[in-house]
């Protein structure tokens, strides 16, 4: 499919003095699945509403397949929209809901029926054609909402947290189903969510929004492995952000504790070191090696993993300093024989210096 290209330029939206959206440049390629991720209030829903035409931007433009739609009313944009609340018309049957978009466009009765049968088959709900929305489960309503938005073959499908009303199991199932449907129909999809797992699992690319701006955009691997800002690292669940000063290309120091890293920042630079919980290991204090020393302050077993918290100790034990930062560590359980160090024990925290991300402030 060649259509479905979305471009946003210099977009600003807000009420009065407050700007809630400020996007310099955003492009979505035809057939791409883009997740727009961010905390609540970051402007992601506003972005969707601007693209859909429900919020008039104060500046900038929205182009779809090269056509400037900034001031086109929603009903002439030919976009599909899936709502968090599904918004199925409660007084219409599933079939009536699905043919609505074609009916208001004046499509022939026969054409409507064929297409309804097609999209019902696509979402696997052929037996439910004559049901009322209230007679369907949440997951089925979700599928009908998706089918309704796809029925008249929109160029772009916008999804506003469509899975957040489903329970965890159904949600995972719908994630993969939605992704398969997207691959099959090839429609460009812009998927708004606050759930980082969901965003990473489903998307070709993820745009992370913070306070109305795009903090970072890239493939899930890219954005997860190389966060550009502490906010991105934190939002994607890095766990430990340690502020430190660069000493040399192999060492930074935080509150008197040396941490081994790899960085090209010159000495003296203020940086944030991202220590992912699952990248960290504990070693015995007696073993000399790389990595800072710390005292275990908390240990808990949670099925397949252990959660351990370690308070960093300064290199120079004689020095009196403010208490060191607490680092969370997630260790795989090794079975009956092994358990990590107990509370109160002093250990050495180790990690592969190359795998740790250093973000320049």
């Amino acid at each position, binding site marked *: 499919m060649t259509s479905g290209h979305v471009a946003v330029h210099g977009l600003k939206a807000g009420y009065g003095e407050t700007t809630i959206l400020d996007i310099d440049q955003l492009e979505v390629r035809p057939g791409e699945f883009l997740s727009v991720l961010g905390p609540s209030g970051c402007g992601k829903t506003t972005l969707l509403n601007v693209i*859909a*035409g*429900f919020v008039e931007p104060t500046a900038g433009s929205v182009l779809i397949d090269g056509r400037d739609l900034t001031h086109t*009313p*929603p*009903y*002439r*944009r*030919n*976009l*599909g*929209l899936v*709502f968090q*609340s599904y*918004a*199925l*018309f*409660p*007084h219409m049957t599933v079939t009536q809901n699905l043919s*609505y*978009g074609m009916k*208001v*466009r004046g499509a022939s009765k026969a054409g409507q029926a064929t297409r309804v049968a097609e999209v019902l088959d696509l979402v696997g709900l052929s037996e439910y054609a004559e049901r*009322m929305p*209230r007679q369907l489960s949440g997951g089925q309503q979700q599928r009908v909402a998706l089918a*309704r*938005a796809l029925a*008249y073959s929109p160029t772009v499908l916008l999804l506003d947290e469509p899975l957040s009303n489903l329970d965890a199991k159904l949600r995972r199932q719908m994630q993969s189903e939605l992704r398969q449907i997207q691959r099959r129909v090839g429609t460009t999809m812009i998927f708004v969510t606050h759930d980082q797992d969901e965003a990473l699992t489903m998307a070709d690319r993820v745009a992370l929004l913070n306070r109305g701006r795009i903090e970072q955009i890239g493939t899930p691997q890219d954005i997860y492995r190389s966060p550009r800002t502490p906010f991105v690292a934190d939002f994607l669940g890095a766990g430990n952000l340690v502020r430190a000063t660069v000493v040399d290309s192999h060492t930074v120091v935080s509150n008197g504790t040396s941490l081994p890293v790899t960085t090209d920042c010159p000495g003296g630079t203020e940086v944030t070191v991202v220590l992912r919980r699952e990248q960290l290991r504990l070693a015995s204090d007696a073993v000399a090696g790389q990595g800072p020393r710390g005292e275990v302050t908390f240990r808990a077993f949670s099925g397949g993993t252990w959660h351990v918290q370690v308070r960093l100790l300064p290199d120079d034990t004689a020095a009196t300093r403010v208490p060191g930062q607490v680092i969370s560590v997630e260790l795989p359980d090794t079975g009956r024989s092994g358990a990590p160090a107990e509370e109160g024990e002093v250990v050495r925290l180790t990690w592969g210096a190359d795998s740790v991300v250093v973000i320049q402030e």
Partner: protein
Amino acid sequence: MMGPLRRRTRLLAWLPLTPGGLFLLALFVVPLFSLLVLSLRPTDAYFDPQQGFTAAQYTEVLSGRYYRDALAYTVEMALIVTVLCAVVGYPVAWLLVHARSAVLRLVIVLVVVSPLLTSVVVRSFGWRALLAANGPVNRLLVGTRLVAGPVNLLTGPVTVVVVVTHVLLPFAIVTLSTALSRIDDAYLRASSSLGARPAATFLNVVLPLSVPGLVSGAAIVFSLAMGIYVTPLLVGGANQPLAGLRVYDQALRVFNQPSAAAMSFTLFAVSLVAIAVLTRFGHHWERRIHD
């Protein structure tokens, strides 16, 4: 052990309803029942009720022109007022729910409820001043040479309809705006995103979903319009063929109370039937959507 205790607590649960129940019994059910008995009593030459029972008053109400015409006129007036209230009230209710500006919403609320907050006497004399022979409306009509001389605007069917619509409009707007505010905004956006123009969204989504509000608003407005008499009386006088005015006339001027009672009951029955039909329709509609 649990049985009697539970029964006692269940009886106790009814206790808070007693004052309201007694109030209703004393001031509604008892007078209504005695009115029913009165309407069935035979009368002497001075319209004094006698012992025994007769359907003579009901025959008179349903066959005599005096009452029958009034009843037909009143039903027609109430129907027109109901339709007018729906048509005029709907856009106002919509604006009340969807206006972005809080100031505008406040102004609408004040204008809407103002007929309810002013005394019926003040309001009615306001109408009289407006519609009098030398009032602004007549002066405008004469001044623009639409009519040769001042016309009687105070009595007559159009005035009754206008005045009663004004009085009952708040009830329509309040019920309609409640219904409209219950329609999730997402339905409207869904319809628009699916390609429906505003008019199509209104016809296909808003109107069907507001049926419950239309039904309850219509029931309230219709039954109030059926019994209204104070405002038409104060604006246009007692000589109009309105059922409420006829009852007033018979009961307090001719002193034919059994006949007035029979007329009251007939009015009551017509309203009940209308409300029953409307609410049945409303229930049927809502069951389709919600059960």
